[in-house]
């Protein structure tokens, strides 16, 4: 059984716009899928639809989203809350956007864990420190004791990743996880994602416009264009033998080092 399946999913916003139409693809267990495309292609919308985090007015107008065979559209808000965070976790492009700037990292981290795990505080602290160390963040205690603004972009993103992975989700959704980061930090985060999949067997759907990152991470790649899935294939198929002219264009537009 696939961990995630989208069957002919169309998302609409109020006003009739359809940022994503007739999207179908499957994410096998423990695989990494990259959804690539340019701005406005609808790739982020697809991710948010899976997570149930569409902006107000947005809804899945057509089709089904199946998580482990279960139709997410049929779940109540309460049931969805159980899944969100624990079974399906999500990280975004700018971790600074969703880490509360007025609270220390530790406080937010422990709260997140507390929502899903009924562990005493000191157990949660241990878990948090273990995850931070696993992501090569030095001095976890200092990080827990810091405010988000005291951390660099790369560190914040890894903290976000640590938080997302702490509950051992089966599926991780990542919306442009490396775009706001420096080259060397991007490389570190990509490496951590691969290691995570190896260690925990977490499946991932990663939205990115960085073809290089997609090529490194993905087992499967979906190319989105103007709300539709232009092409879908294995990493090798898309990178080495793309069928669509658009995909070919995307690949050649990126200069690569000699």
């Amino acid at each position: 059984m696939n961990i995630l399946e989208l069957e002919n999913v169309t998302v609409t916003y109020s006003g009739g716009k359809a940022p994503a139409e007739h999207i179908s693809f499957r994410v096998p267990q423990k695989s990494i899928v990259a959804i690539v495309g340019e701005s406005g292609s609808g790739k982020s919308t697809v991710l948010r639809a899976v997570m149930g985090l569409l902006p107000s007015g947005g809804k899945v107008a057509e089709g089904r989203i199946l998580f482990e065979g279960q139709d997410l559209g049929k779940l109540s808000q309460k049931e969805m809350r159980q899944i969100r965070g624990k079974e399906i976790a999500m990280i975004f492009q700018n971790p600074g956007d969703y880490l509360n700037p007025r609270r220390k990292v530790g406080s937010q981290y422990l709260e997140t864990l507390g929502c899903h795990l009924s562990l005493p505080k000191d157990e949660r602290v241990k878990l948090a420190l273990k995850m931070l160390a696993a992501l090569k963040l030095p001095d976890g205690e200092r990080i827990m004791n810091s405010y988000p603004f005291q951390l660099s972009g790369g560190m914040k993103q890894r903290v976000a990743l640590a938080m997302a992975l702490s509950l051992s989700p089966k599926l991780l959704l990542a919306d442009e996880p490396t775009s706001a980061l420096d080259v060397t930090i991007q490389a570190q985060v990509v490496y951590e994602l691969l290691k995570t999949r190896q260690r925990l067997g977490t499946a991932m759907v990663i939205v990115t416009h960085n073809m290089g990152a997609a090529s490194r991470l993905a087992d499967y790649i979906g190319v989105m264009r103007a709300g539709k899935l232009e092409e879908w294939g294995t990493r090798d198929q898309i990178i080495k033998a793309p069928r669509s002219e658009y995909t070919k264009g995307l690949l050649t537009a990126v200069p690569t080092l000699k």
Partner: protein
Amino acid sequence: MEKQILKLSHVTREFELKSGEKLRAVTDVSLSVGQGEFVFVAGESGCGKSTLVKMAALLEPVTQGRILFEGEDVTGLRGKGLRQYRRQVQIVLQDPENVCGPRMKVGRFLMEPWINFERKSRKEARDMALYSLERVGLSEEFFHRYPHQLSGGQLQRVSIARAIALHPRLLICDEATSALDVSVQRQILELLKEHQRETGYGVLFICHDLAVAEALGTRVAVMYLGRVVEIMELKEGESLKKTARHPYTKALLASTLSVQDDPEELWQIISGEPPSPVRIPEGCGFCERCVERMERCQKERPELGKVGGGHWVACFKGHESAAAENAPFHD
């Protein structure tokens, strides 16, 4: 020998913080841009590249050092001289949203330089503005729109259109294409190159993507913790990976994710992050994270030493491996 348009000579920019500590964003950097040259400045967040180009654009004061424009000292220029400088040296910044006033239509924004600097009539300015839009691949309808009605990429194109409209002698770009989609990035970079072929202006381009620098640059300067650690001249078809000697440059190149890579092959990851510019360490700034460090590197800071034609490196290992000449750096 190309005509030198801009010369930054041993420039330093120091900020004094409320705590009394000093933050050195840029330390002792010398860099020049000649006619027809496309000089890339690469480096990661906090390396000082943005501050450096803002100093070049006279948007940031210089704590130490001098800036020369076509041979004349323009450091600390004010008034009429500064206005003339602005006409000759245009800068395109990273956040296009903040450039065009939100209440000004795009057309008006593009007409301004013609009216202010060239004293053109409104009709002539309008024609030039429409032509500018066309050059950056935007249709006439954008003339009548407000900034909030354009995407980030479109705004950036408008910003560039305005900057090149008056054929400045030097164009400075601070990550001007990073926020654009790849296909648009390519278009814009080609436009800038083409424009350079036509007008011979110099370009100082900040870009974190070394692949872009390799494809388009004539020279690449790599910065780390406020200093230039390597400068390379690039000939057509030359590979940065084969040329680079500084361990940081090599690490940057090796970390770059590319569709060409074999996903099974490991690639280099340098751990950690740069030290804080408030507490610049003694010795080489990169020492802590350097795979090739020697004992000497912790106490002594390597100066830029020549290792080849137009190639300078600030690294003891780098000097050794090329039997560097003992000549002081000049650019």
